[in-house]
């Protein structure tokens, strides 16, 4: 997994590339802990995210809960495979997917 961040004022876009699995999710989780300070508008760009497992969903849920307190969060360019997992778990209803 590779993480690319782009910060514009209070808007942060995080591009997650590759696989968000049990091996890589802790890295994203750690990254978010500090990266979200002061952010009011968070976008996850999943254009190049090929795979997500429950460990990745947990990170998204924690991020969504945090952003509900300090701003908003959305997922963009979600692939069919990732969307299927979001649908199956009801996460698609909890998050803004553009």
């Amino acid at each position, binding site marked *: 997994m590779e993480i690319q961040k782009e910060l514009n004022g209070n808007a942060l876009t995080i591009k997650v590339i590759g696989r968000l*699995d049990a*091996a890589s999710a802790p890295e994203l989780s750690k990254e978010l802990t500090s990266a979200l300070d002061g952010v009011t508008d968070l976008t996850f760009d999943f254009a190049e995210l090929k795979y997500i*497992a429950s*460990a990745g969903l947990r990170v998204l*849920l924690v991020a969504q809960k945090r952003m509900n307190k300090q701003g908003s969060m959305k997922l963009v360019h979600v692939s069919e*495979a990732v969307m299927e997992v979001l649908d199956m778990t009801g996460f698609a209803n*909890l998050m803004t997917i553009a």
Partner: protein
Amino acid sequence: MKKITVDATVDNLQQIIDFATEQLEERDCPMKVVMQMELVIEEIFVNISSYAYHPEIGPATFCVEFEENPPAVLMTFIDGGKPYNPLEKSDPDTTLDIDERDVGGLGIFLVKKNVDEISYRFDDGKNILNMKKFL
């Protein structure tokens, strides 16, 4: 039947996934099925890695075989850790709103959603989880 045994640690997740993917691709399984099986394997293997032998490390065996008429893939996980039936875990309520959603229970729920048959038994000191997916 083909099988692989590794220490159940998250570091070995990719090794199990690669082994399974190779078998599935040899059978020309659709990409979608390969992806779903990757997810199933990850969730079970990570569970074993996290809980079965905790705080020790122990082995997990993964077996894969194919059936004809109707075509199906059979996958089995075996570990010698604490007796644990993952099927007894209740499914998360996927209709709850965000504040009520818990992060637990998602893994095994995804497994159940992506296979057609699943059964657990504890036999001879081992946890044995059998899964079947029609192709």
